[in-house]
């Protein structure tokens, strides 16, 4: 036993507190669990430690801890490592040092966790009073819950006379992505919020998209090399023309004019070759980069579609549209124009530098002198420009968000006569865009001319040094000097365009970052690694101890429910009671935090999501119709459906009657830019959509809430056809909607309060009786 407990100690004792905790433990006292609150009682950040052993709960505080030196002054009974001879009974442990507290397990009743707005607390309750409260931030919620569980087990063990209940293989589900993790962790590694790698590299990540087009890119770069090489020939010929023809001629040598045309022809050929090659390389590389950015757009959108509802809940539409649209466009522009230019520039500089150094080493070195200085300048402005461009981009998204907000809400704006306020709101956002752009331009406008200035100064350096060499030693010919000036003139022009590249890189990096922010987001509902193919399901649903937490808020708490195939269940309860959450969990829009949902006896997390959802049909409160024909909208879940099937589905959904009255029948355009239909009509189309997919599990989420009673009757008829033979979960505020339900499940604050038929529940369930009463009153008022 002692040996064993030693092992457990080493596992269960917190490393940072080990020494201090061990020194306070009785020999053989076994640490069962520990918890580290990260706030002290004044809610200031500060570490603490709560330790649970078989006999007691101890807690330690960092701030009030005695300094290391003072340990010596302690009475001997509290010296570290008490040996067995002076073994203290656990009762003595109640005497404590400052900054430490200890309670015997028998004096404790419960440890109660509470949670509100990112602040958690653990209350230690005695039999008659509250003994202690520990506070922690949101990150420690699951750790606190584990501690509470360990405490309960220890209490049970105490009552059972020592035996700890056998630890059921505690399966922890990562609350963020649903993957299974080992108990000491509270989040899986992938979901643990961490800081990202430095963004300077974010552009390199585009390389992944370039890989598939490597051959084309290689071809493009060999063309670049050739065209740059061709561009280097004319200045060389110029130098040669001066030194070998013009200068000797002027100094009286006999040189015939006949050679001059050959020089000119050589230059001409070089110019043409450079032009042709440049044309080809621009075409090749630009089309490659277009393809790369098209891939990027596709992948971003495809990834976006696979992300969970959670992601869309937190992001604004305008911002997402801007990312897929303008950010990818900016990257494309960067790849096809700026990066291409930059590649050419680098090659040009490398080749020119080599040529110059081959001709005259000291002269080459002097010519290269201003280079590092300009590079340094570019580096300095780089950071500022980068921030500036990200700001303009963010300001732009903010402005678009105003549009996305107010244009769909235009009726509300007009009805409350707030046009001027919205104009003002837009004007202010637009002002932010303007200011952000002006700030960038201030930097930018300073940057470009200073490069030109440095360039000019650079040429002066060569003139000066070259002239000095010509005068002083006469070892440098005028031809070579002119050659250098021509080369450097070209080179410095390149430097100017390179400096533009700095800004473009920053702009593109900011965009890339925004794109990868989407691409890096893992779907919080992951596909299983070893999938079980559901095929066509029976529709038997079992909820086992299902809990769901949204952030730190517990929405659903240990719900147990078994639904037979073909059964219709009505979910009722006040708003916020977790009805929709339960439905979202069954649809697997989110994954359960703990517990499991079994369909036909298999955990739904082992089904591939798409195959599983093919078995589910859903009718929402606000039916969404896409832009397209009615037929396309009905066949949305099964695009291959025949016209016969579509009409049959529409008939069953009682939609056929009004569709035939439309001028274009099933080919009428609906959706945002199409013909307007009434709420009831749209709902019947969405019911037809669900009927056509022939789902085994049907979800009706307030399907009749937003329509008048007459329309509700029509929709009810349509629904009757749909519900027939399918496992149905219906949420409704109007209890009349749930008349045909086999059983009603009453939820309140995430807990199942009662299950039963209407008559039983009116008798037995207070919450249901209240809902029923409210419904009756409402019906009467409408009737009156």
């Amino acid at each position, binding site marked *: 036993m002692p040996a064993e407990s030693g092992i457990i100690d080493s596992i269960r004792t917190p490393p940072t507190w080990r020494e201090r905790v061990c020194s306070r433990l009785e020999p053989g006292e076994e640490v069962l669990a520990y918890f580290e609150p990260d*706030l002290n009682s*004044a*809610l*200031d*950040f*500060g570490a603490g430690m709560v330790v649970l052993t078989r006999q007691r709960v101890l807690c330690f505080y960092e701030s009030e801890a005695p300094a290391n030196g003072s340990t010596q002054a302690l009475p001997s009974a509290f010296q570290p490592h008490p040996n067995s001879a002076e073994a203290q009974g656990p009762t003595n442990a109640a005497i404590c040092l400052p900054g430490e507290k200890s309670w015997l397990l028998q004096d404790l009743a419960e440890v109660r966790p509470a949670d*509100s*707005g*990112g*602040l958690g*607390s653990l*209350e230690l*309750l005695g039999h*008659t*009073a*509250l003994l202690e*409260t520990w*506070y922690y*931030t*949101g*990150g420690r*919620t699951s750790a606190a819950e584990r501690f509470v569980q360990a405490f309960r087990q220890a209490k049970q063990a105490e009552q059972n006379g020592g035996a700890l209940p056998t630890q059921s293989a505690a399966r922890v589900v990562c609350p963020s992505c649903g993957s299974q993790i080992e108990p000491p962790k509270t989040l899986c590694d992938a979901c643990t*919020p*961490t*800081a*990202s*790698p*430095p*963004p300077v590299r*974010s552009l390199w990540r585009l390389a992944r998209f370039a890989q598939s087009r490597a051959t084309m890119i290689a071809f493009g770069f060999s063309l670049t090399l050739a065209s740059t090489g061709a561009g280097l020939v004319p200045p060389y010929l110029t130098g040669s023309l001066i030194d070998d023809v013009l200068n000797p001629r002027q100094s009286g040598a006999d040189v015939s004019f006949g050679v001059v045309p050959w020089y000119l022809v050589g230059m001409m050929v070089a110019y043409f070759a450079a032009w042709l090659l440049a044309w080809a390389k621009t075409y090749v590389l630009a089309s490659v980069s277009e393809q790369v950015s098209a891939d990027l757009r596709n992948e971003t959108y495809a990834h976006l579609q696979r992300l969970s509802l959670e992601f869309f809940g*937190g*992001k*604004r539409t305008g911002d997402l549209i801007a990312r897929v649209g303008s950010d990818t466009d900016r990257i494309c522009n960067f790849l096809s124009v700026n990066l291409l230019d930059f590649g050419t520039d680098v090659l040009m500089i490398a080749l020119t530098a080599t040529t110059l150094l081959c001709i005259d080493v000291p002269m080459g070195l002097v010519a290269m002198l201003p280079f590092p200085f300009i590079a340094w300048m570019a580096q300095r402005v780089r950071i500022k420009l*980068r*921030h500036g461009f*990200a*700001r303009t981009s*963010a300001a732009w998204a903010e402005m678009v968000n105003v549009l996305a907000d107010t244009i769909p809400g235009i009726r509300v704006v007009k009805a409350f006569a707030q046009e001027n306020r919205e104009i003002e709101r837009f004007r202010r956002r637009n002002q932010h865009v303007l200011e952000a752009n002006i700030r960038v331009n201030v930097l930018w406008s300073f940057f470009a001319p200073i490069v030109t200035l440095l360039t000019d100064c650079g040429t002066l350096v060569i003139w000066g040094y070259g002239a000095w060499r010509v005068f002083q030693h006469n070892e440098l010919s005028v031809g070579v000097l002119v050659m250098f000036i021509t080369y450097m003139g070209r080179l410095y022009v390149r430097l100017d365009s390179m400096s533009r590249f700095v800004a473009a890189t920053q702009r593109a990096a900011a965009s890339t*970052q925004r794109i990868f*922010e989407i691409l890096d987001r893992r779907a919080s509902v992951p596909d299983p690694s070893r999938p079980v193919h559901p095929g066509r399901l029976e529709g038997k649903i079992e909820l086992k101890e299902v809990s769901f937490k949204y*952030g*730190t808020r517990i929405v659903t708490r240990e719900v147990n429910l078994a639904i037979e195939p073909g059964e219709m269940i009505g979910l009722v309860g006040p708003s916020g009671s977790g009805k929709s959450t339960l439905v979202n969990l069954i649809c697997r829009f989110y994954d359960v935090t703990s517990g499991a949902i079994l369909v036909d006896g298999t955990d739904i997390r082992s089904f591939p999501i798409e195959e599983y959802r093919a078995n589910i049909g859903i009718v929402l409160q606000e039916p969404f119709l896409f832009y397209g024909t009615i037929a396309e909208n009905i066949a949305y879940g099964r695009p291959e459906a025949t016209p016969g099937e579509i009409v049959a589905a529409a008939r069953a959904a009682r939609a056929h009657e009004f569709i035939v009255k439309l001028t274009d029948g099933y080919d009428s355009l609906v959706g945002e830019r199409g013909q307007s239909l009434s709420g009831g009509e749209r709902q019947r189309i969405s019911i037809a959509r669900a009927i056509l997919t022939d789902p085994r599990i049907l979800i009706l989420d307030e399907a009749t809430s937003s329509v008048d009673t007459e329309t509700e009757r029509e929709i009810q008829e349509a629904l009757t056809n749909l519900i027939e033979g399918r496992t149905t979960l219906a949420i409704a505020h109007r209890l009349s909607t749930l008349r045909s339900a086999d059983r009603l499940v009453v939820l309140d604050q995430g807990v199942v309060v009662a299950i039963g038929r209407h008559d039983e529940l009116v008798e037995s369930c207070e919450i249901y009786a209240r809902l029923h009463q409210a419904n009756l009153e409402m019906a009467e008022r409408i009737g009156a």
Partner: protein
Amino acid sequence: MSKPANHSQEKRKTFSPADESRAATSLDFSLLRDEWGQLTFQRSVGETPVPVWGAPLFPISHPDQWIAVCSADGTELACVVDPAQLPSHVWKLLKEDLDRREFVPIIQRIVWVSGNSEPCELKVQTDRGPTTFVLKSEDDIRRIGDHQILIIDAHKTRYFIPDLRNVDAKTRRIVEWYV
């Protein structure tokens, strides 16, 4: 002319926001803290105390005004528009309860940021001591009003900057980069 007050009272059937704000529920109650640390509410002395909690209605714009006193199921028992309306010991208890629940550290200084793309880590100095947290997305830094900033970390803990003009240049630059 004789009784204009009465006259207007009879006529007053329509809703008026100004009147409504004045018509707060009676503030004639007392609060106690029981041995479980629970705040309880009592209208009159013999009455059984009801467990309650304080709910700030405008936690950001008016943190110390407009406090609703709610029972466990969320029913509002009283609404304290202004602490001056309450006896000081009652307000002290209510304030204690609020402080125990409200955890919004005020950022005084951002010391360090791991990088300029999210998710990133921020090391900050707050009124509750130094801490480090992870910022998940740029949307989690929000501007409230003109100069107030609310930051929500990856664990939904909220941090507040009451006035962006009063922090040092580095902090302001980091925050402004988001809003």
